[in-house]
């Protein structure tokens, strides 16, 4: 299966693998070797049991080569939110397009731009981090990303710098992308004592197109830093989206993630957070909305390697029609990670009789003085709550939408940045047809 892909994208000559500094070449080569060895995952692979990737594995995919020509700012307007002074980096079909991007007023020393450009200009800063955190063993898709990555967002916030405005990375696909694959690759490094907000949006101008996005984001939060990271996935409902976010958290840092998944025929997101220092706080929130035949798969893994850390996770799903969702939440607590406080919740709301959820918590705890809880629910709207709304004059259909929206809004409330919260709420209202 993997050969199909290799024949089309990596013919072994190395030309398909993007150019870069010398140190990167062996890294790419090792990743390619890894993928050649493993091939695509199959249903026998526990990690992919409920998410068959055959449509990806059996497909033939060109490498996306965006130019941004013919795309206007007006076309992108529906995907841009927040304030005009935010830094917005636009990638069309996998490639950075400066003409569509807008640089905000960034504090001194902050780097925010294209990863490809950074690789050309600043290879050494990247060498320490790029492809050093997300192991190619994570999944065959991660190996492919490392082998074939070309471009993506690069954000570096130096020590004790407060990035007052967020950086928004917008990955937009166009009709030209049909039948191709892009490997957006992002690197976010927040140094000691710094504070930042990053938003990743995966959106499309071709809502009916079939294409494949294979995204990897590596994040490092330095000691005592603060980062809010929002991911909004609104791909074409015929597209395949596979993504990994890998986070390294150093001591005393605060990382909060919100992962929204609405698009894709098949959408898989892995969020892996390694707590490699003490007194770390990690908040992981997620919301997936599926309909038709969509499949949304969220796998999260939190590695409590050090003592006195707290992780808090809430993922919610709203499923309609014959759509499916998969949730797998791993919590690993090492023997030395005493006083770990970890809580995981996955709640699913079914709007139809034919929607289906596979949810599985997976806790592996090797320390004895810890507080770890998990809970998962799959259910329908509460009859009594519906009656309550109706008894106030709200018609049945509207009451359903109102309560469905409330279910989603409860987790969106956890987003710290107000314009992001507003945008997420707007997207949910738009999907549910409420005003």
């Amino acid at each position, binding site marked *: 299966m993997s050969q199909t892909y290799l024949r089309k994208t990596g013919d072994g000559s190395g030309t398909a693998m993007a150019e870069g500094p010398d140190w990167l070449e062996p890294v790419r080569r090792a990743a390619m070797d890894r993928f050649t060895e493993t091939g695509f995952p199959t249903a026998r692979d526990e990690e992919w049991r409920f998410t068959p990737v055959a449509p990806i594995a059996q497909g033939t995919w060109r490498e996306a080569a965006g130019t941004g020509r013919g795309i206007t700012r007006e076309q992108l307007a529906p995907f841009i939110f927040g304030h005009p002074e935010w830094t917005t980096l636009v990638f069309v079909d996998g490639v950075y397009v400066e003409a569509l991007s807008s640089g905000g007023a960034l504090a001194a020393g902050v780097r925010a731009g294209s990863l490809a450009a950074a690789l050309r200009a600043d290879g050494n800063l990247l060498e320490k981090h790029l492809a050093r955190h997300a192991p190619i063993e994570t999944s065959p898709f991660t190996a492919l990303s490392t082998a074939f990555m070309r471009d993506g967002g690069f954000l570096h916030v130096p020590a004790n710098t407060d990035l007052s405005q967020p950086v928004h990375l917008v990955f937009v696909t166009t009709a030209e992308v049909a039948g191709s694959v892009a490997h957006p690759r992002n690197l976010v490094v927040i140094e000691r004592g710094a504070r930042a907000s990053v938003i990743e949006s995966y959106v499309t101008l071709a809502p009916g197109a079939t294409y494949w996005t294979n995204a990897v984001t590596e994040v490092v939060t330095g000691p005592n830093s603060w980062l809010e990271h929002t991911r909004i996935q609104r791909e074409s409902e015929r597209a395949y989206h596979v993504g990994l976010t890998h986070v390294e958290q150093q001591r005393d840092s605060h990382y909060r993630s919100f992962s929204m998944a609405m698009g894709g025929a098949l959408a898989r997101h892995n969020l892996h957070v390694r707590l490699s220092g003490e007194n770390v706080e990690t908040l992981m929130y997620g919301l997936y909305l599926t309909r038709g035949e969509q499949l949304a798969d969220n796998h999260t893994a939190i590695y409590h390697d050090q003592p006195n850390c707290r992780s808090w996770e809430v993922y919610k799903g709203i499923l309609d029609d014959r759509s499916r969702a998969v949730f797998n939440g791993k919590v690993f607590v090492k023997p030395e990670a005493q006083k770990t406080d970890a809580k995981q919740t996955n709640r699913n709301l079914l709007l139809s009789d034919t929607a289906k959820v596979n949810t599985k918590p997976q806790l592996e705890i090797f320390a004895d003085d810890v507080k770890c809880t998990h809970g998962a629910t799959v259910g329908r709207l509460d009859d009594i709550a519906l*009656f309550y709304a*109706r*008894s*106030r*004059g*709200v018609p049945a259909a509207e009451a359903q939408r109102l309560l469905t929206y*409330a279910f989603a809004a409860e987790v969106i409330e956890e987003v710290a940045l107000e314009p992001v919260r507003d945008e997420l709420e707007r997207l949910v209202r738009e999907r549910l047809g409420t005003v």
Partner: protein
Amino acid sequence: MLEIKGLRASAGDKEILKGIDLTVKVGEVHAVMGPNGSGKSTLAQVLAGHPAYEVTAGQVLYEGKDLLDMEPEERAQSGVFLAFQYPVEIPGISNAYFLRAAYNEIRKAKGLEEVDSMDFLDLLEEKLRLVEWGPEIMNRAVNSGFSGGEKKRNEILQMAVLEPKLAILDETDSGLDIDAVRIVARGVNALRRPDNATVIVTHYQRLLNYIIPDRVHVLVGGRIAKSGGKELALELEARGYEWLEEEAGAVL
């Protein structure tokens, strides 16, 4: 305004209301009292259209219309309001959002224009004062994390905003301290008008010190065992419900 004739209702296999006859005229306040399990809350919920109960016999006319034939939202839109014994928590949407949605739906049903959030806030100000609340409560999620007293007060606030013609208060006073009872009573009294009516379902006589009923009915075993004037409530307070239960038992 409200005419209940031979009303019987069940929850699952269990018959709870076994033939209720009750007439409430415009401008009146009726108290429905009774021991636990007598069916008084069921009566209140059936009138609002609670899905857990099935009406098996009888008729309820509200302003001459067949109330039982109306969906819960239609009842609300035509002026029926039930203050819930256990108000429902709705995390995720604010009190303001929920109440404005309800207010606008009722206006829409009357063919009136919807109000925007600014105008709604103006309208709220006066209603909030009635229940001695500041505006902050409106930003909190509906009943979510509210104390028992706050939930009941929120029901009265909703009632004040929606201005029903027929208000049914289901054990709104239960579990409240005396200050909260006073606030609830003040809200109810302020909303009393010659063109509306109130049915107060309660276990205790205490609320009736503040809201003087025109009629008091005692429900025992799913039937009205006794009706009378306001002095009946005092008698119940003094004597308890046992004597009525015994009388009803003798009849059964």
